[in-house]
């Protein structure tokens, strides 16, 4: 099994700040915006961005929710292993808000398809955008593209892009794993 580093901790730091600035460009003071981290792996990125927005750019009260999409997936009973749910924590209504979905890797687009259905349970957003750290181009099953992307990569379908976060895995890094 080969493991190749795609982004180092320094590169991730720069990318996170760029993504935060791009969000500010479009959402200014985030008054009517809600950031939604997609469980399980998108939540680290979402929390990191919120902390950059609050601490480095002094934007208070950024609304952050965590959305679990397990019960909305289209591969229930079609996969080998059963799915385990995670916590959904959205304590506001997204009705008429600008929602930004945040996930670590965009691959087939099926998680985002599920998230688009799931978010409707919390109201009708005025618009939905997508922010991802890694955009795996040319591997989409559905017509879904990110509005903000940290880095675009072209890798073979058998290869896995694995995002590591300091708070979970001890170190920020993105790897390409070759089975």
């Amino acid at each position, binding site marked *: 099994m080969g493991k190749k580093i795609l982004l180092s901790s320094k590169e991730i730091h720069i990318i996170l700040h760029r993504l935060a600035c791009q969000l500010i460009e479009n959402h200014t003071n985030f008054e009517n915006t809600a950031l939604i981290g997609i469980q399980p792996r998108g939540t680290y990125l979402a929390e990191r961005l919120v902390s950059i927005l609050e601490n480095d750019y002094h934007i208070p009260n950024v609304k952050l929710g965590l959305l679990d999409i397990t*019960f909305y997936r289209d591969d229930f009973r079609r996969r080998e292993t059963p799915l*385990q749910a995670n916590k*959904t924590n959205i304590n506001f209504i997204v009705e008429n808000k600008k929602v930004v979905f945040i996930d670590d890797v965009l691959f087939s687009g099926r998680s985002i398809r599920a998230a688009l259905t799931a978010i409707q*349970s919390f109201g009708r957003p005025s618009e939905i955008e997508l922010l991802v750290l890694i955009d795996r181009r040319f591997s989409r099953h559905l017509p879904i593209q990110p509005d903000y992307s940290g880095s675009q990569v072209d890798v073979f379908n058998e290869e896995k892009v694995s995002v590591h976060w300091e708070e979970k895995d001890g170190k920020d890094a993105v790897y390409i794993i070759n089975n």
Partner: protein
Amino acid sequence: MSQLSVKHLLGIKHINKADIDLIFKTADHFKEVINRPIKKVPSLRDITIANLFFENSTRTRLSFELAEKRLSADVVNFSASQSSVKKGETLIDTANNILSMKVDIIVMRHPDVGACDFLSQHVNAQIVNAGDGTHEHPTQALLDSFSIREKLGSVEGKKIVIVGDVLHSRVALSNIYALKLQGAEVKVCGPKTLIPKYIESLGVSVEYNIKKALEWCDVANVLRVQNERMEINYFPSTREYSQLFGINKQLLDSLDKKIVIMHPGPINRGVELTSDVADSPNQSIILNQVENGVAIRMAVIYLLAQQV
């Protein structure tokens, strides 16, 4: 672990502690779902469930039906009073006829002990026992434990007394299995005639004095006197029963602690519980039990459907 160890939910006797933990963990998520503005998830879009009720039920049938609908399953309902059972059709024939219409899961309540077990051996569908005679009622026991866990933090080490008609109660038997699996201490209390002779072999103790039982416990799960299952008189009169084993406000206030009151419903008000006890907002969790019932049934069906 993210899969149940069983293919059917026939009784708590057949499952283990890990199964209970998995069901509770899944139910936590579904409890959050049913408190959303839109209380429905599309997980079971391609599953069809038949609810076969050969015995009367309001709460359980509604609770199962709501759970199934909130998972987006297709649901067909069947009650014995309006069916071919009246014309002499056997249980297996009835079930197989329903299954040929491509049903994946059967939820069944039946007046006979072991009916679900029997059906699970003869038809090709997953069976959920919604109560079989005086035997087991697993989803009720699960929601009871889930409600205790919600109210007191955990079930392990808690003292639970089951009061009343233990002899005819499937709720009592399933609860004893479930509570023992989770490490709780269990006592039963009721008239001698309504306590099964060998109940101690299940690892529970017996108390015939209601006041002593309540002083001992953290939670009292009060059962209904099942007059419809009594072919003889087990106690002289309802009035005597309620005087000796009924729980009222004075009795609760005379204890030096606040215990939790549960009841699987339907309540015979004034017999096993007086209204001020049943409706007491800080001690009774009867309506929480009903709410949790939907979440628990969603979890059970969701987890079983993974194996369809």
